[in-house]
């Protein structure tokens, strides 16, 4: 019996290995053919041109900028909202808002893309008076909204886990509640909040379906108001139609994205472990 359960436990490891091996095996041929430097540092992506070019530097930079932007907007708002839910709001109010925030996490990502395309994109176009509103900026806003639920719920859990005694001691020493929240509770919950940030990074860098509708998907070098292509959208836009070297190059993008995600997971794991221990 134990053997069966061991097998079940081992299968999670096996899945990770299979995914890793498959991505490496299918990602390497194109990198070998294109050349690692040309692939990672090439500034031009033209996969179906007569002389195809497979440079993913614009995609990598866009993913990094987009994720950073989403974190910059999403984390402060999400953290403040978590403080509100965990500490400030009356229980009943928090009890109403929390399930709605959870609901936000359950909306399929295409819907975010659709609302973004119909509301946000025209807004960006009118505000900045550009030819089209599909841009890095629109993607950042959509990503920021999409990572909010996980940031809110993870930071709220971390804030709630701070021992009551810390806060009471701070209040007894004459600190106001607001000071206590930001100078005692938040530092005490910092590894949990850091985990929330890393989780947000993971979500943002991996999102494809929503930003595909608002990013414009032209592989320009990233700038705030131009049409851009992310690593994820680079795969999703062409995956269904691809063939030959182009298809293999998409798997190589998948491999690069996977490496990014693995780094983020390792960091997340470190934070979570520290959270458990301390």
């Amino acid at each position, binding site marked *: 019996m134990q053997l069966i359960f061991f097998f079940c436990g081992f299968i999670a490891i096996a899945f990770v290995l299979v995914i890793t091996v498959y991505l490496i095996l299918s990602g390497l041929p194109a990198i070998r053919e294109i050349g690692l430097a040309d692939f990672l540092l090439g500034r031009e992506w033209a996969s179906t041109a007569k002389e195809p070019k497979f440079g993913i530097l614009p995609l990598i930079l866009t993913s990094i900028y987009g994720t950073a932007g989403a974190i910059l907007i999403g984390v402060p708002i999400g953290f403040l909202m978590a403080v509100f839910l965990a500490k400030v709001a009356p229980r009943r109010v928090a009890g109403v808002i929390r399930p709605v925030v959870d609901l936000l996490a359950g909306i399929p990502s295409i819907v975010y893309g659709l609302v973004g395309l119909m509301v946000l994109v025209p807004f960006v176009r009118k505000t900045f008076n550009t030819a089209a509103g*599909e841009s890095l900026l629109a993607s950042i806003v959509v990503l920021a909204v999409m990572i909010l639920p996980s940031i809110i719920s993870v930071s709220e859990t971390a804030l709630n886990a701070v021992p009551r005694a810390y806060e009471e001691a701070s209040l007894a020493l004459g600190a106001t509640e607001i000071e206590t929240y930001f100078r005692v509770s938040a530092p005490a919950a910092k590894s949990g909040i850091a985990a929330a940030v890393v989780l947000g990074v993971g979500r943002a860098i991996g999102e494809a379906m929503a930003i595909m509708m608002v990013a414009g*998907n032209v592989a320009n070098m990233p700038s705030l108001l131009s049409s851009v292509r992310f690593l994820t959208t680079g795969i999703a836009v062409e995956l269904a139609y691809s*063939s030959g070297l182009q298809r293999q190059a998409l798997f190589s993008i998948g491999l690069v994205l996977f490496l990014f995600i693995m780094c983020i997971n390792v960091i997340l794991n470190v934070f979570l472990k520290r959270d458990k221990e301390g």
Partner: protein
Amino acid sequence: MKKRTLALMLSAALCVGLLAGCGGTADTTQSPAAGSNSPAAEQSQTPAGTELSGTVNTDGSTSMADVMAAFQESFGDIQPDVTVNYSGTGSGSGITNVLAGTVDIGLSSRALTDEEKAEGAVENIVALDGVAIVVNPENTITDLTVEQIAQIYNGTITNWSELGGADAPIAVIGRDAASGTRGAFEEIVGVEDQCVYTNEYESTGEVIGSVAGNPNAIGYASLSAVDDSVTALKVNGVAPSEATVADGSYEIQRPFVMVTVEGSQLAPAAQAFLDWAMSADAADEVTAAGCVSPNA
């Protein structure tokens, strides 16, 4: 007491799940074998002739979704035991997959290239589709020549005022690199590999959504998918319609192709489906899907 009954019931359900799970995994290991025998072959003991059974897998152009849906529906009435599956993955992958033998019939929304034909792909045209040039309803332009369209798409003309419209930059919207619509459009207009796109989209829906929300935008989309939210321009003075596509006076049009492989025998169900789709009987379905039948 109540809780215990619930727990018992749920654990019973779980046990069933476990058993079924074993069954499930067993099935999985057998499946490669099951997959390689085509289901059509397994079931073909049923009397041959008019009553066929089995599965026809088709894969390819997303633009052909409506046509295929109509075909699936009507063919289901003619041959109730035949299941026609359709996956919209794009013309390129449809052709690749049929050549690789993973599907019965590939679907392409552009004419086959010479290389594809050299690899053994056979072109069976089942419908004609106009590619509409669409702009926002606020745009005052109603008519462009093919030449002007080419200049917009290769970046020579960048402002609507150069064409007599408002003084606004042109947002050039197109499809992703391997789309059949894009392939057909760029070939007909003569701008292959020269396009300067503001935005590239993965699907017709996004192109129409984007153009509908942006007065500066121009895009192209399958005529059958165009609705009131955008305006379809006249090209060389000819408005796109089923009649103008059928008589060829509307220039920007492309064939919908069912791709088969030369020299390989289709399963009876797939052959029957192809024969029917190529016949005049299927013309109503082609029309219902907003396209023009070449076989009517």
